[in-house]
């Protein structure tokens, strides 16, 4: 109950912010057609939710995110493991990684559009590229950080190299891998929305920009609210997976 109480207490700050927003609007301090109060956005939000018209754009955006993210996770873990376990591959690939990693991934969207167009392929590629590096870097650090005692124990107990990677190195790096995946998930969400805004004709990002351009301000804000909840839910979902996957981390 105290846990619930604390979360309930935290809700107060959100309610307070909404209340302040409402008051500022009602006091006439802002142009209501540019920034409507929450009380006017709520009906627009309700309309979107009740009509079910949120399903298609949401599915579109989450679909792109999920595919790109999955590719990034698989590739990131595989590359991180290979680089972490082989000095040869590390020496070969590390400079390449360090050159591509600092590029702000949104800068790649125009280039991707040039040769991938504005369809699913472009969006998936952009998400995958952005989400790849946190997973890759964290996996690499996780692998390199495995305790030497653990590795020596595997050797003295006669584990083969492959068994050591699969049964010792991979699970030992899992907490770090998951940390990378968590960062990647939020980056992926940012990038899929951005890609939809810059070059797409569907998805939530496209919709928000389209509503803004056609001056439908209230539904625009409603969609931003939906995105906030989506981001929050993804994070909560991830935490649940994390707690189940690495129960020993708390210790």
């Amino acid at each position: 109950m105290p846990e619930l109480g604390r979360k309930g207490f935290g809700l107060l700050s959100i309610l307070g912010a909404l209340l302040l927003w409402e008051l500022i609007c009602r006091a006439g301090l802002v142009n209501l057609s540019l920034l409507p109060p929450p009380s006017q956005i709520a009906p627009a939000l309700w309309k979107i939710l009740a009509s079910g018209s949120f399903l298609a754009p949401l599915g579109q955006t989450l679909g792109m995110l999920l595919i790109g993210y999955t590719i990034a996770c698989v590739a990131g873990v595989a590359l991180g493991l290979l680089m972490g376990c082989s000095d040869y591959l590390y020496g070969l690939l590390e400079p390449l990684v360090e050159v591509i990693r600092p590029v702000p991934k949104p800068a790649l969207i125009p280039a991707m559009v040039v040769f991938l167009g504005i369809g699913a392929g472009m969006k998936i590629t952009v998400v995958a590229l952005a989400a790849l590096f946190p997973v890759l870097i964290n996996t690499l650090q996780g692998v390199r950080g495995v305790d030497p005692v653990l590795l020596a124990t595997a050797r003295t107990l006669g584990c083969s190299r492959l068994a050591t990677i699969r049964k010792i190195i991979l699970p030992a790096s899992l907490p770090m891998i998951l940390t990378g995946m968590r960062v990647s998930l939020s980056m992926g969400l940012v990038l899929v929305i951005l890609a939809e805004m810059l070059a797409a004709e569907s998805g939530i990002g496209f919709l928000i920009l389209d509503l803004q351009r056609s001056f439908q301000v209230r539904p625009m804000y409603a969609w931003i609210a939906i995105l906030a909840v989506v981001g929050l839910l993804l994070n909560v979902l991830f935490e649940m997976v994390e707690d189940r996957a690495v129960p020993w981390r708390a210790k």
Partner: protein
Amino acid sequence: MTATAGYLSIRDVNKVYGGQHGETTTALKSISLEVKQGEFLAILGPSGCGKSTLLQIVAGLIDGTAGEVVLNGRAVTAPPPEMVYLFQQYSKSLLPWRTVEQNVALVFESKGMKKRDIAARCGEYLGMVGLAAFRAHYPWQLSGGMQQRVAIARALAAQPRVLLLDEPFSAVDALTRIELQSLVLDLWARQGLTILLITHDVDEAVFMADRIAVLSARPSTVEMVVDTALPWPRDAMGTRELPRFLQLRHELVTHLLQRQNAGHVDA
């Protein structure tokens, strides 16, 4: 114990570490020891004298700079299957994502055994260390002494002929240490193992070993090898009250203290 000469030979082992600026540190200098099959040899030395380095060279985990280790007629260049190294840091050598039983099972999995057989064998070895009831627990749910028991069970499950113990009891409380010492002596006698024990604890070396090799501070050399000449089986209380035990402990502690003070003057 039936002891055979020349079972495990440590011949002229040196270990020199190179620093970043060309300077070198000699950790081990011409270490030679002969260990008989079935013998319990304690290697006693001050902290930081390179005892663990020596034991890891014996285990084939790291390479010496010079010299060789020969087990049963074969030079050790990689960890031999009949030799298992038990680390002091049980909390780092156990896999926290595996249960106690699964930790022991690690040894059998690489041998392609059937699942049911593995469970039975794990139960057998956990029984030996008194942990049969804790097979479904995770290591981090157990006390330090119990975790080290799991590590011991896992080491035995690998069916070694030689067990290398690297200060295995120094991280547990005094009473648990006494319990674990007796447990290891019991297993040593029952399994017919050869044991090399690294320790800085004079009491432990005298209580457990057939012979004690005393190492000097860096660069480490073998200063002397003494026969404990205490009767078997050892008793946690009785052995420690024997005149021979007290005399030997007195001699060794005096020797180590003299060495330490001499070292301080040198420095």
